[in-house]
């Protein structure tokens, strides 16, 4: 999602994520800056935001995306672009025990370059340590896919009537725009 300047590029990048998030949370995503030569993050002002399930259970969502801003070759005429560099989407129970998480952080873990999923202690009392240690290989996982999983599988209450449509639209945009 290109922009005429770094700020516009970041705003264009965060806007669809924010819209997807609005399907079940009033949480606000913020960038860590607008510099073109450093790694940046988009996340909440707090480690997690609260979710509620149809059954009344409180869950917590954790979201971080690392990104960088790519300068155009000719800044006067070109557009600034944002490239995703890492992500973590996690679901936690009411006690902040992690249940599951979708991770991709190749620059922090040279030996684990691929997107993966973790199953944590919050998924059940008898989850073996070996299972909790495994990086289950996945495709690149869109935030919208995680949102759909929250609503369909964890029965998180949508905050808007058009949640399904919003997530499908944004997922299609993501799939058209992604480069891998």
């Amino acid at each position, binding site marked *: 999602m290109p922009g005429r300047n770094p700020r516009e590029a970041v705003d264009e990048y965060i806007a669809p994520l924010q819209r997807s998030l609005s399907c079940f949370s009033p949480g606000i995503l913020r960038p*860590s*800056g607008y510099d073109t030569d450093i790694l940046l*993050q988009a996340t909440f*002002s707090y*480690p997690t935001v609260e979710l509620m399930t149809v059954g009344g259970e409180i869950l917590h969502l954790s979201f971080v995306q690392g990104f960088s801003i790519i300068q155009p070759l000719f800044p006067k005429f070109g557009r600034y672009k944002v490239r995703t560099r890492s992500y973590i989407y*996690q679901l936690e129970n009411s006690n902040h025990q992690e249940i599951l998480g979708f991770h991709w952080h190749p620059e922090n*873990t040279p030996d684990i370059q691929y997107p993966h999923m973790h199953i944590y202690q919050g998924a059940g009392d008898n989850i073996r340590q070996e299972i909790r240690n495994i990086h289950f290989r996945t495709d690149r996982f869109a935030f919208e896919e995680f949102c759909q999983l929250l609503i369909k599988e964890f029965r998180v209450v949508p905050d808007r009537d058009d949640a399904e449509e919003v997530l499908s639209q944004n997922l299609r945009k993501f799939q058209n725009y992604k480069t891998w």
Partner: protein
Amino acid sequence: MPALLESRQVKSGETSDAFTPEEANNLFDATARRYMGISGDEFLQRWDNGEFRDSESQARAMRVAILIPIVRKTSARKKSA
């Protein structure tokens, strides 16, 4: 949705400002305390010393480590995936 919650949502076309350095430090510290039970400063020191790389602690530590660039400027010129 309750009106109070709705009023906190970012409206269409509205953007949110970047973290100030103080907000970034507070977030990093809160995240380290939440996931690792230590302060942000201690996490940075121990991470720099090579701790938290074992398979048992890595998944939790990564939730904090991914935020390191928020408190410590990190070049984006490394290889990008």
